């Protein structure tokens, strides 16, 4: 189903619509077909206007079996269209989905337009010439449905046909069957067999800034951004990770990009992964490590070492539902506390968050810039939504990106490993292999002036402050906080971070269209905050912080600025609904 969704996404992008996607798949690997927990869903929202969310409510649901209907029915807007594979609504499947009676018969779908098509039978029919068994034949059902939907929305079949041919190059009968199914579904729409309730839609292309576009998932953008950032820094990169949902894909993607000279290392656990990354940075490469909440938790002690040793390091956290194993395949943004405060001792570091799939590219570059310029670990927060979701992206011209070559110390004269740049307070990076710079560093407190181990009380206080000042000083070297939409002061600021960008942005637009004054502020630099953030927010009468957690940014904002902050939270593992956001915003404006 995820592959089917990807094909529809591609065709939609090529047709010039803006879009956003939300793949939603089960924690079980291949849960028995027909069970509710085995439902794999793919949601896409596209249109002629700018699309910033996957949509609150589904207009068209294609349900391949009763379980899929059961799990997704709540999401369909009243009056929406539900296309079901009638052939799969047998007693067995109904029971598996825990339906007491057949929803196609018992009136429970009265609020919707329902189109019953026996896709199973039609698919079997369509692929008959290729001599597949029933089970294999039914594997082509998704393509049949895709063909129908292609027809409904006037999509071009060509790219998918090419893709099928390539994917099953060594199994021609499978390729042919799928193609036949796709074409049959399409033909079904086009011909008289089409049930009257199935309309053919024409969605005109959206308005886009001129340029070359592509579709991109957050994972791809992150991987590419890391390569780009390392190249801008002129560094080799050792990417060290231990598989964990939803972070693994980044490892997979980079493992497939070794042609760029990146080395990927699947370590024995998360601690070894960050350890190897720290070792790489010590050795003069860029160490990067990636995981999700529970794995990041395991890296806590080692992060302290990177802070103490003042080594550059990029740590990517694809957040997921928690606590503990929680909801591994669902998205959440609840690791902000952990990123900002989650270490023993005073161990400050920089925290960034990407706001959209494509934004992962620039945020990854920014993380590398800060890590190398300030000799510090940087935590970059992504999440399960960003990792999997995709959006069209106007491809930037990479030559417009300013390089920020990492500087290695070379001069033995007066060298000590904790010599600091007076402006950034970053210590020097002295690479093993350099003659005359042999030195020892570690986790024990070191003397400000000599870099040697020091247990001196005053020195420790001084070092504590210099570590804090260095990170605080990053605020001077990042852009001021901009207002994404709306005025720079006024009644209501809606402050977000991370992957809620799309829904918040859409909700604010709609509110503004309704004449309600609300501004949207979306924070990329979460620690330290941009220097003007406090002043900016003070210019609003109310500050509302919607989050997919229990109010973490709201708490941190309160702790840093003397302002009242309202928190709005939905911790459901799914993106915000515009409707809910608008309610909360309206309440805040009025309240």
């Amino acid at each position, binding site marked *: 189903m995820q592959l089917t969704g990807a094909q529809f996404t591609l065709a939609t*992008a090529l047709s*010039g619509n803006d879009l956003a996607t939300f793949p939603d798949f089960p924690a079980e690997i291949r849960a028995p077909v027909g069970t509710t927990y085995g439902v794999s869903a793919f949601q896409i929202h596209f249109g002629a206007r700018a699309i910033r969310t996957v949509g609150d409510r589904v207009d068209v649901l294609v349900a391949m079996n009763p379980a899929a209907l059961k799990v997704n029915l709540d999401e369909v807007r009243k009056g929406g269209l539900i296309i079901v594979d009638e052939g799969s609504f047998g007693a067995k499947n109904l029971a598996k989905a825990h339906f007491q009676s057949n929803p196609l018969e018992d009136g429970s779908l009265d609020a919707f337009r329902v189109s019953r098509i026996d896709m199973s039978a039609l698919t079997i029919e369509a692929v008959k010439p290729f001599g597949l068994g029933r089970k294999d034949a039914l594997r082509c059902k998704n393509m049949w449905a895709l063909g129908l939907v292609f027809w409904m929305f006037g999509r071009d079949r060509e790219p998918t046909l090419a893709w099928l041919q390539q994917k099953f190059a060594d199994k021609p009968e499978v390729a042919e069957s799928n193609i036949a199914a796709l074409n049959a579904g399409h033909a079904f729409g086009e011909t008289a067999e089409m049930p009257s309730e199935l309309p053919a839609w024409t969605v005109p*292309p959206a308005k*886009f800034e*001129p*340029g*070359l*576009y*592509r579709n991109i998932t957050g994972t791809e953008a992150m991987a*590419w951004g890391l*390569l780009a950032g*390392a*190249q801008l820094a*002129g*560094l*080799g990169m*050792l990417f*060290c990770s231990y598989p964990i949902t939803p972070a693994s894909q980044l490892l997979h993607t980079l493992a497939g*990009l070794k*042609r*760029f*000279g*990146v*080395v990927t*290392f699947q*370590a*024995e656990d998360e*601690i*070894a*992964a960050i*350890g*190897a990354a*720290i*070792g*790489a*940075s*010590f*050795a*003069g*490469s860029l*160490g990067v490590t990636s995981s999700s909440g529970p794995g990041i938790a395991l890296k806590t*002690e*080692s992060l302290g*070492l990177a802070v103490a040793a003042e080594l550059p390091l990029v740590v990517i956290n694809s957040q997921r539902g928690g606590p503990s194993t929680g909801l591994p395949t669902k998205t959440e943004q609840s690791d902000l506390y952990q990123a900002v405060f989650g270490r023993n001792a005073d161990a400050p570091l920089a925290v960034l968050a990407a706001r959209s799939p494509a934004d992962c590219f620039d945020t990854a570059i920014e993380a590398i810039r800060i890590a190398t310029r300030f000799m510090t670990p940087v935590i970059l927060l992504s999440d399960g939504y960003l990792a999997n979701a995709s959006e069209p992206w106007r*491809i*930037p011209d*990479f030559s417009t990106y300013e390089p920020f070559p990492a500087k290695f110390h070379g001069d033995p004269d007066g060298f000590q490993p904790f010599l600091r740049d007076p402006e950034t307070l970053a210590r020097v990076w002295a690479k*093993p*292999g*350099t003659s*005359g710079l*042999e*030195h*020892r*560093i*570690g*986790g*024990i407190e070191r003397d400000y002036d000599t870099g*040697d*181990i020091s247990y001196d009380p005053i020195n420790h206080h001084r070092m504590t402050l210099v570590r804090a000042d260095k990170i605080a000083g990053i605020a001077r070297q990042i852009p001021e906080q901009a207002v994404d939409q709306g005025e720079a002061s006024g009644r209501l600021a809606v402050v977000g971070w991370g992957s809620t960008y799309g829904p918040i942005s859409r909700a604010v637009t709609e509110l503004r269209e309704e004449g309600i004054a609300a501004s949207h502020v979306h924070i990329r630099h979460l620690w330290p905050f941009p220097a003007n953030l406090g002043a900016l927010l003070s210019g609003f009468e109310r500050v509302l912080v919607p989050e997919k957690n229990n109010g973490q940014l709201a708490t941190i904002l309160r702790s840093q600025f003397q302002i009242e902050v309202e928190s709005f939270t939905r911790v459901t593992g799914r993106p915000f609904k515009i409707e809910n956001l608008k309610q909360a915003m309206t309440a805040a404006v009025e309240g």
Partner: protein
Amino acid sequence: MTDAKPPAALQPKDYASDQEVRWCPGCGDYAIIKAVQKTCADLQLARERTVFVSGIGCAARFPYYMDTYGFHTIHGRAPAIATGVKLANPDLDVWVIGGDGDLLSIGGNHLMHVLRRNVDLTVLLFNNEIYGLTKGQYSPTSRPGTRSPSTPTGSLDNPVSAAHFALGSGGRFVARAIDTQQKRLPDILRRAHDFKGTGFVEIFQNCIVYNDAVFSDFTDRDVADDRQIHVEHGEPLLFGRDRDKGLRLDARTLRLEVVAVGKDGIDEADILVHDEENPTLAALLAAMEPPDFPVALGILYCAPAPSYETQVSEQVAALSGGQWPGAVSGDIDALLRSGHTWTHR
């Protein structure tokens, strides 16, 4: 280096840093560092290419005392961090130093994984059968019944054998030595260093403060000859002051036995010959314990195989057409434009 003269040969002392050595007087670590510095000089290791990585513990203070690059990291993680150092720059000569707590208690997993991967590191485990730095608690190598601050009525766990564990983890170079044997130790260290893969050496190290004389049952001068066997590849497994004792295999029970050469019709031909490449022999040797058997010292096992970082470098070099280590290369613009793209006007 601005100076063009060929550098004079480095002496052991040239590998000593300017930091005061802070082990307890009489600690076995002093002997070990001496042997390491001698080994460095013997091999004329370039100081700037040499990196000592350690965890936490008395042993792990080691890097501070070496005038090379050094990274005193956190407890148990040195093998993982050293793996990163080596992967990032395979030209570096990377040593890992740790105690029995560091490498076998908290760090046992990382040790297992470097061993199985065969990362080209020289790993020295200073086994004093105790946690020195934290003031004397028993460790995973302590003998059952050890009374320590955390086991005032005696410890109950079976110890793990470092060498046996290394073999079980797929280690391909496993050696053993005694801290104070300054003649033998540098040779063993040299072999471990030269091994292209993980060269693992367990060094019996006396902690004079918390576990003094724990190895005296085989290191004391009066018992040493009869309780130590120094194995040499291709040589018969003989020991004793007069080298008149030997190890023989009982092929029926698959167990070793100590026999007196020259007695009961036993001659040297009956004695097993050491074969470094034989894992079964290595395990049999590693398992020997006094008083019934001598402790096996020297290179128990050495079976070369490609090292991990070499394969990694080769793989990435082949795919990138470049050199590793090197900066990330390749055409980012082309990457961004790969796959389906379209134009809006």
